């Protein structure tokens, strides 16, 4: 079973999916400070910190591989309590459910792309990330993290927005900010998304867990057009020349569903990861 669901899911709510459990979307708006307690003048920037941490861990990759592996292991064992947040890939169908339930939903600039490509997205036509919950009401506390501000969206608008990024080929990742508190649905790709990169290149799994789904291809329907090969951010699909069709390696598949939404003949279906004995412990 997915360890995040085990810790934060409710078996009676949405099949136990932690990110569809309303409790993980809920937070108070206000806090009474102690009389002598002042608002901190400087904040931390979790995404930047995790990028710097990767740099520190990485330096051992070639000089001291044992230490490197040990540090990666430790980071994963922290299960989100350390410098790496919890994130899980979700297909767009589940992202719809999230934006229907959570409030407010706002588009904002992607923090990873700011850090990794110095790419500024300064208005709602450029924003590529989705923030969720009461934290969005207080974005002006940390304008450095919300360059350009936030753009509140009604659920239908938010779905159209997800479709826009899905069409372009972005993977949706549900992200937490502090424990199991869901703070966003990111639209991610390799290499500018820190979470995908940390997982694919360094094995930090916490921030980019595989989804509860996995893609399955119907060879009778596949015409071998290759659209899905282009859309997969995880290199799970290859063109199998002898069959003149494509082939999905389900062990590599993250279950993002991009191939499914792109396939012109509906040859791809997402099936429950846990229905396959060989995959039910692969997260």
């Amino acid at each position, binding site marked *: 079973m997915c360890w995040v669901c085990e810790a934060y899911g409710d078996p009676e709510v949405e099949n136990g999916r932690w990110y569809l459990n*309303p*409790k993980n*979307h*809920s*937070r*108070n*708006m*206000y*806090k*009474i*400070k*102690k009389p002598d307690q002042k608002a901190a003048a400087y904040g931390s920037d979790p995404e930047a910190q995790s990028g710097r941490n990767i740099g520190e861990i990485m330096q051992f990759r070639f000089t001291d591989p044992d230490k490197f592996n040990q540090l990666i292991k430790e980071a994963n064992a922290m299960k989100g309590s350390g410098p790496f947040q919890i994130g899980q890939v979700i297909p767009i169908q589940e992202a719809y459910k999230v934006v*229907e*339930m*959570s*409030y*407010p*939903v*706002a588009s904002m600039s992607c923090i990873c792309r700011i850090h990794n490509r110095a790419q*500024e997205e*300064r*208005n709602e036509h450029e924003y590529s990330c989705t923030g969720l919950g*009461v934290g*969005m*009401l*207080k*974005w*002006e*506390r940390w*304008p450095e993290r919300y*360059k*350009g*501000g936030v753009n*509140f*969206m*009604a*659920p239908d*608008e938010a779905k159209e927005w997800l479709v826009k990024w899905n069409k372009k080929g972005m993977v949706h990742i549900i992200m937490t900010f502090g424990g199991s508190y869901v703070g966003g649905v990111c639209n991610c790709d390799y290499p500018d998304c820190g979470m995908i990169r940390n997982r694919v290149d360094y094995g930090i799994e916490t921030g980019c867990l595989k989804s509860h789904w996995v893609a399955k291809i119907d060879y009778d329907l596949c015409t071998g057009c290759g659209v899905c090969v282009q859309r997969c951010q995880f290199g799970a699909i290859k063109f199998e020349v002898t069959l003149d069709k494509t082939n999905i390696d389900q062990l590599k598949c993250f279950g993002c569903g991009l191939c499914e939404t792109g396939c012109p003949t509906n040859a791809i279906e997402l099936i429950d990861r846990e229905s396959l004995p060989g995959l039910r412990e692969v997260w």
Partner: protein
Amino acid sequence: MKEIYEAKNYSYELNPDMLKLLREEFDVDKVTSKFAEAIKGKSAGEIEAEGKAIFEEYGRNWIRQSLKLGEEYPDRTYEVLLEAIDKTGGYLRFALAPQRFLEIAYLSTQEISILPIIENNVNRLVYRMVDCDTYKNLKEKCGEEVANLLPCRHACLTACETLHRDLEIDALVQMEAQIPKDGYCQFAARRA
């Protein structure tokens, strides 16, 4: 491309003056003393009736004043919430608009630093009181037996109902847990 964000120093927390005004007017010590006085020598049935009368009235006034002062003392969190609601449609006022006034009401009268919000989504608003001062006061002044009847629940329930009615939101209010049995009280407003 927009300019760099001009530095601003907003307050996102509740106005302390407002909290003080509410605390003075709706002191749990006072209302529990009033109740303790009123039930002296009364039978069980009468105690329930007294509790209902006293706490319902208290709850109604408490939340109405929280609503009134909450509007008079806005903060940046509320201003941005109103912007968001304006942009996304009034239907989505629930749950955050009522949540704000509940937080004002409880944070002003109880010794808590946050009001635990269990759910706040477009369908349900659920919150919890763990270490309730009203209950503690009742226990001290009227004994555990009377306190465990939770006459004070009338205040919380009435407050939550009145709040949604005054905000013109159709919601069903329920009590989902009670301190004597569950260790905390939990109230839920579900969109009707």
